[in-house]
């Protein structure tokens, strides 16, 4: 995956670049808005990660606006310092696809970028989802593992569907809250954990290998161990 990073803080930039490179991605980097916009419009990227505040005459939102005006639909994630929660709204209205406040965990950033890229590549309608021996029928709402039917409550079904659509990738607690219930708020971590442990009891107990795993400090991941 080829990612463009536009960020003026050297330390944050190095941290993000290292992270993406370790995951096997190619990262192009610009430390100001002008170079960032130039790279973004002249090269093809799978995703762009932008800081909101940038030197060089063009800020993050300026880049988003310029790209969208020229019909460039590359998924964009906007980074911003704390305390600008209201800016989130503006960033998304300008055509950004996601928004993450600093300080952030790299796992969260990586998970969100993965989700953005997958969403933009999403091809056609699906009627079934499969992860390992776990199968979900989206039409009949039936879930089975190794051929054995599993009864799920509606909210557990929504949760599992979200996890299966992001199978093999880390999803964070905030992503779950936003993706399933469409709310952006700070829920205490144990709220989401209790959802996960209920679901885990249903899909993992009595089966092998465990599919739903906790990624410490970041979130969860559905899929067999690599």
């Amino acid at each position, binding site marked *: 995956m080829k990612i463009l990073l536009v960020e003026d803080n050297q330390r944050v930039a190095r941290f993000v670049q290292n992270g993406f490179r370790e995951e096997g991605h190619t990262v192009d980097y610009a430390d100001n808005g002008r170079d960032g916009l130039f790279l973004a419009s002249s090269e093809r990227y799978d995703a762009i990660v932008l800081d909101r505040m940038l030197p060089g005459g063009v800020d993050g939102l300026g880049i988003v606006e310029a790209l969208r005006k020229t019909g460039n639909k590359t998924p964009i994630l906007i980074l911003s310092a*704390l*305390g600008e*929660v*209201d800016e989130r*709204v503006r960033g*998304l*209205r300008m055509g950004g*696809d*996601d*928004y993450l*406040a600093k*300080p952030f*965990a790299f796992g969260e950033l990586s998970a*969100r970028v993965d*989700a*953005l890229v997958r*969403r933009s590549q*999403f091809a*056609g*309608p*699906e009627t079934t989802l499969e992860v390992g021996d776990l199968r979900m029928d*989206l039409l009949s709402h039936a879930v089975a593992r190794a051929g054995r039917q599993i009864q799920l409550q509606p*909210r557990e079904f929504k949760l599992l*569907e*979200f996890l299966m*659509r992001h199978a093999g990738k880390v999803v964070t607690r905030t*992503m779950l*809250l*936003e*993706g*399933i*219930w*469409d*709310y*952006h*708020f*700070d*829920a*205490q971590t*144990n*709220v989401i954990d*209790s*959802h996960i*442990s*209920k679901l885990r009891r249903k899909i993992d107990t009595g089966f092998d290998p465990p599919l739903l795993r906790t990624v*410490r*400090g970041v979130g969860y991941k559905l899929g067999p161990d690599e």
Partner: protein
Amino acid sequence: MNSLVRSTAVRLALGYAALFVVSSLVLVGFLWWRTADYLDREIDAVIVADAQAISDRLRDFGLPGAIETIADRVSHAGDEHSIYLLTDPALHRVAGNLEAWPLQVGSTPGWYEIELVRAGKVHATRGLFAVLPGGFRLLVGRDIQDRVEVRTLILHGLAWASLGALGLAILGGLLLRRSVLHRVEAINRTASAIVRGDFSQRVPVQGSSDEFDRLARTINSMLERIEHLVDRVRGASNAVAHDLRTPLAELRARLEDIARARPPGEAVHEEIEKAVADIDRVIGIFNALLRLAEIDSGLRRSAFRRVDLAEIVGQVSEIYEPLAEEKGIVIAAEIPSGAAVDGDADLIAQAIGNLLDNAIKYAPPNSRVSLQIASGDEGRLAIEVADHGPGIGDSERARVTEPFYRGDRSAGTEGTGLGLSVVEAVARLHGGALEFRDNKPGLIAVLTLPGAGARDGAETDPLRVIRPMATPPVSAP
């Protein structure tokens, strides 16, 4: 002296004195002017009549007739208020009660005001100088010394009265200044003490309910409010410092441990993960504080939309259900449909979530937490969250919404200490309120929000449409 002039009371009194003097001057001056004018005209008429009569006699009976008339007038006048003098063209006296032609009378005929000395006393005299047939010159006059004296008397009287008024004004001003200054000085002293940092000072109230007392009471209640706010801010920043110190101290200890003991790779890894968790706690506190500040600033109001309160309550209750189930708690939700509110869905969800989180945290295992929406007065909607936990004592109710306040019941529990502060801020932002009632036993938290009226066709929130991370839409084939 300078400070006297700068004193408002003295300036006020001086102003009144000046006004008094000027208005008396105008009044007396006007009266004097009208009276003097009348007297002048009377005297002038008499003088003209006299002169006319003498002139007539001269014409009809010649010089002897005129002399006789003058002698007659002089003797009949009796007093010395009238003067007559007839001279020949060479100014030699022919008749009259003046010895010689007065130098003050010029060579042209007309009216003159002259001063004559009679019996060693100066007498102001008004006279008419006329030239009669044959070149004779006639001077007829009346003594107006009385009038001049009256005028002098009045002028002097006015001057003394003005001086007196001025003196009284200054005295009054000084007295007024003393009584006013005394009160103003008291306010000034209090304010200065507060500037120096002594917030316990209050302006003394005399109990007379005058303007100063009312001012003092207003200032005192303002001071009380300020003291309360300052205490609150001081308490909050102390609490922030304290609440941050704990995770930071743990973090420091952890890192120092790694640096000193140099454990093998795997253990370092584990320690670092714990360190990151410590930092996340600190960031969590900061995020909550910033969110609180953001809500308090009112900025979010621009993003208000018509939202379905019943739907939010339903979803939040769904989000918290598994957490409740872990403690064997049942969330009994009673939600009527179609309760609309103009507001921020995320914030309302956050507020209800915080209330539910508290209820679940403090409710005893295997109990019920009830959640319902009730309609109140004026279309207000009350979201009631009731538990059977230890509740909050009357004395604590006002304080639990203060940032970082930790009551008896929260000892040893997790949390940022900002949950209820956020709920209260959200309520305030929406024009609602957060109240607590006794559930006997337990607590009922009531979050009241103004309803959006009965209008139909709630707007959709554009943000909801572009919100990221939603599951990809499954388009129809």
